């Protein structure tokens, strides 16, 4: 037998290792593997790992995750197989929680501003000192009977944390304002108006046959993308007939790229298009007659006939007819809308018209359609998380300017970055005597704070969540600390605390009775858990409370798949009056493009900008990372002599930013798109001074019916600057496959299999 070099090495290696190993008797032959010379360090036993269930709080809708912990350090995040929202799957953003936990620029302990506001000069103080100062501020407001000038700003949080924040603000007598950069005001209002629901319903994509989405990039960033994507996998190639996805959008988004057809609509015309689809469905007798009667009052919406709206919407009459017929004949069918469709001055009308389509095809409350999530069986957290509208912020800025805001406390929100520049929130903040931040990263808002009380990372803290959108039945997700607080015991003044516990301590210091059952956050959660235990139904049941509590933490929460929304199908309401979008006045030759800002896959609207993994996550469509680019139609770019990486100035009537050109084959010629999330003035080494902030040039047009910001209604002009910067993108990092006849990379079949 001829011996190859490889065999020789294997044999000699094995031969030397074997006698040594077998000296210790009882070692299984399997162990030989470990010492074999061809094995890598990966094969060595490195210790035991534990996986703890908790919630990911990196984006709006919490996902149930399990975190791998070794030697007291969190190593990996994976989806919690049991958790109904994401069922074992997780998004790129969830992993970011780890780098947030171990971020090199994390604030290690309480800080007190020592220089001018905004200069970033702080001194470390003790928790006693910092909490004392917070209490002093609060009690001064109390004694001057000026409690109303306290404003508590948080991200929209469900579960107990939101409840405690709201209770604290209301018992103190201040204002509670949940903030999100891409507000859901219009979405929530439309859901309320159409379905009478406070919570965003669940869309059962996995059982649907046809999904018609308007503006909502639901596979990428909109509301609950992991849940929708999981449904989408089943929708495409599950144990069922393949579903059809049609996406209507004024921008070529990731969802548009995955749709069977992407229908380009003129910005803000989504609602009128939806009415036209409704007209065809009703006219051709495909609609549920009772629903049609209730929605239209007997008219068949003749004024929205496809021929009449084709020019206005930019969608041909044949396409409208086709979509309407397919939508009505492939039941169960879902119509959903959001994102840019709701971000116009007629956003509420658009979304109301879109969601009303579900009644015409009988999808409301049906499997494979729009399913409602009931409130959780705990009265204290029964309210859905809310958020303030742009109009509320505009009012607040006026109050700030007139000195009516004495103390602003900010948690999990960065309004200095995300509110449109034209509002002047940053300038107005100089009129607020004291700003307190609970952030553990020096974000744009925290950089303006006087006192910083850094809170735990979500992996270090307790919590609950009632996801919005939920899974269609009662659920309370539980979040438990999976590692000890990272800065605990590391120095006299170091350490972080839970936000809820900070508020509870403050309330105690003020002798403010919040009326909560428990002294600490954990006590309060346990109190509520006892109520769930007493229900004796759902996913976790046990003989005694201790086993129930442990079982629930192990599974990541409590839910009852049988506790669905009661009350049947809500009656359809009359369709609203049609409304066309308004834009900034067009000045000929100056603002030729519609600006379509969009949430980034990795960094969202800026929440993940400090996390290097998320900064380096390529945008699905352009593969660009780390900087701000502007997507311009490839032909328009040719006309303007723009190559990729040419720096352009994007000017709106409210300001201008610089971004790198990305000539884009998919985007309509009259639209340019810019990702949100960059352009931080602070935010740590990975976020600071990077790219441009698209919020800073947004117009302040609002939907007057709700006060929501029309963030897709800005018009901009493009001007080429004499500068070129390489766009950091993954595309072309590896060579293109050769263009030979057989060099197929992606094969596509037209067979429906």
């Amino acid at each position, binding site marked *: 037998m001829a011996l190859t070099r490889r065999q020789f090495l294997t044999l000699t290696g094995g031969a030397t290792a074997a006698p040594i190993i077998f000296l210790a008797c009882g070692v299984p032959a399997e162990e030989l593997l470990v010492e074999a010379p061809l094995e890598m360090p990966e094969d060595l036993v490195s210790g035991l790992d534990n996986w703890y269930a908790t919630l990911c709080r990196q984006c709006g809708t919490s996902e149930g995750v399990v975190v791998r912990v070794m030697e007291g350090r969190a190593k990996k995040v994976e989806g919690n197989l049991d958790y109904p929202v994401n069922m074992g799957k997780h998004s790129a953003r969830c*992993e970011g929680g780890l780098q947030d936990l171990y971020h090199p620029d994390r604030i290690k302990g309480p800080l007190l501003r020592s220089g001018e506001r905004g200069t970033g000069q702080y001194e470390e103080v003790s928790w006693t000192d910092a909490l004392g100062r917070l209490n002093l501020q609060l009690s001064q407001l109390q004694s001057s009977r000026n409690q109303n000038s306290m404003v508590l700003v948080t991200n929209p949080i469900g579960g107990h944390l939101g409840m405690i924040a709201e209770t604290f603000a209301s018992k103190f007598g201040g204002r509670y304002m949940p903030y999100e950069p891409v507000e859901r005001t219009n979405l929530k209002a439309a859901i309320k108006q159409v379905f009478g629901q406070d919570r965003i319903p669940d869309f059962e994509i996995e059982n649907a046959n046809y999904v018609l989405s308007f503006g909502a990039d639901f596979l990428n960033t909109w509301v609950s993308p992991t849940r929708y994507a999981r449904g989408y996998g089943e929708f495409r190639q599950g144990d069922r007939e393949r579903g059809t996805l049609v996406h209507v959008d004024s921008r070529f988004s990731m969802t548009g790229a995955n749709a069977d057809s992407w229908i380009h609509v003129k910005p803000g015309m989504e609602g009128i298009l939806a009415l036209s689809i409704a007209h065809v469905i009703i006219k051709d007798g495909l609609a549920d007659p009772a629903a049609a009667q209730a929605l239209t009052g007997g008219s068949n919406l003749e004024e929205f006939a496809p021929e009449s709206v084709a020019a206005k919407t930019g969608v041909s009459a044949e396409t409208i007819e086709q979509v309407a017929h397919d939508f009505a004949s492939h039941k169960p069918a879902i119509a959903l809308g959001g994102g840019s469709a709701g971000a116009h001055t007629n956003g509420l009308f658009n979304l109301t018209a879109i969601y009303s389509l579900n009644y015409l095809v009988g999808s409301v409350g049906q499997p494979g359609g729009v399913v409602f999530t009931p409130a959780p069986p705990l009265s204290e957290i029964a309210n859905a998380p809310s958020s303030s509208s742009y109009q509320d912020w505009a009012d607040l800025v006026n109050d700030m300017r007139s000195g009516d805001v004495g103390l602003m406390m900010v948690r999990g929100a960065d309004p200095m970055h995300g509110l449109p520049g034209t509002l002047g929130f940053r300038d107005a903040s100089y009129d607020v005597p004291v700003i307190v931040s609970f952030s553990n990263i020096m974000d744009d808002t925290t950089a303006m704070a006087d006192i910083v009380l850094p809170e735990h990372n979500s992996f270090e803290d307790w919590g609950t969540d009632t996801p919005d959108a939920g899974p269609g039945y009662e659920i309370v997700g539980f979040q438990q600390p999976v590692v000890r607080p990272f800065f605990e015991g590391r120095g006299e003044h170091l350490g972080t605390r839970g936000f809820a516990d900070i508020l509870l301590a403050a309330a105690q210091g003020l002798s403010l009775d919040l009326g909560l059952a428990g002294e600490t956050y954990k006590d309060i959660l346990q109190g509520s858990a006892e109520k769930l235990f007493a229900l004796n139904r759902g996913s976790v049941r046990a003989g005694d409370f201790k086993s129930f509590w442990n079982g629930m933490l192990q599974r990541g929460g409590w839910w009852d798949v049988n506790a669905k929304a009661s009350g049947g199908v809500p009656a359809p309401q009359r369709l609203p009056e049609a409304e066309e979008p308004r834009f900034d006045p067009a000045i000929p030759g100056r603002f030729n493009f519609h600006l379509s800002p969009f949430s980034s896959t990795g960094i969202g609207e800026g929440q993940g900008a400090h996390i290097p993994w998320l900064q380096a996550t390529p945008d699905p469509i352009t593969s660009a990372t780390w900087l701000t680019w502007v997507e311009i139609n490839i032909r328009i770019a040719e006309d303007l002599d723009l190559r990729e990486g040419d720096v352009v100035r994007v000017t709106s009537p409210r300001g201008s930013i610089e971004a790198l050109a990305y000539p884009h084959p998919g985007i309509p010629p009259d639209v340019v798109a810019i990702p949100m999330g960059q352009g931080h003035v602070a935010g740590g080494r990975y976020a600071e001074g990077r790219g441009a902030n698209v919020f800073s040039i947004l117009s302040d047009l609002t939907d007057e019916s709700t006060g929501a910001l029309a963030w897709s209604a800005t018009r901009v002009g493009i001007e080429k600057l004499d500068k070129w910067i390489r766009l950091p993108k993954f595309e*072309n990092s590896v060579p293109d496959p050769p263009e030979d006849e057989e060099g197929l*990379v992606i094969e596509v079949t037209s067979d429906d299999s």
Partner: protein
Amino acid sequence: MAESWGMVIDLDKCTGCQACVVACQSENNIPINDEGLFNQRRAIEWIRIERYWEGEFPDVKARFIPILCQHCADAPCEPVCPVFATYHNNEGLNVQVYNRCIGTRFCANGCPYHVRFFNFWEPEWPDSLKNQLNPDVTVRSRGIMEKCTFCVQRIRRTGRKAAQAGIDKSDAELERGLNPACVNACPTQTLEFGDMIDVLTAVKEGTRLPDEPKSKAGAKVKKELEEDGGRGYRLREQLGTNPSVVYLRKVDEHRKEVVTHG
């Protein structure tokens, strides 16, 4: 022969969401791809999403394909390595032994899938971020070639657990631990992983596919290869690399003509 690990990638499900990419970086201690690395075209992504354009506005399509090491049975990267740093192990994995690698980069030149990445720089993390590094995975130093391992550390760990419990490591109960990080993350379940020795051997030898494939992934491949109009294919199969990764074609009802790439 023990196992032969393989993967099925259903392109009809892939949305291009990048969850697999970040999950892989978190699991495998991949250095932070900073701006400079992207600009130098030296960013490391063991699994990546390629995006291909078809057409132009308004008739435009963007298609996504996740590409990772194909763990070829006849891997072009293996015979060119002068130091046997890359070789095929008895579980069908194309393995990279870091402490043998001397960085000739011949393997990267040989790989038709461009899934091998060279460490041009010493990987650096700020001290605190090192707390997250996976102790089961070596941090590769400068001058070393690296690539997807099908998360061999998970296969090993699961193997030990299985041995303790006295069950087979392909047991469904251990699936989550066995799956590579990308597979567990993938929200649409585009990626499926499993022991495909029976199916892959049959495909390689051109014999009949097994009646009852060992794994779910194998069963899926069998279905898609046998059925009329089945969607299975392997990437650049004509090169004779015998990849262990099987792709399932994307379905496009509106496809007007046969599409290749670009």
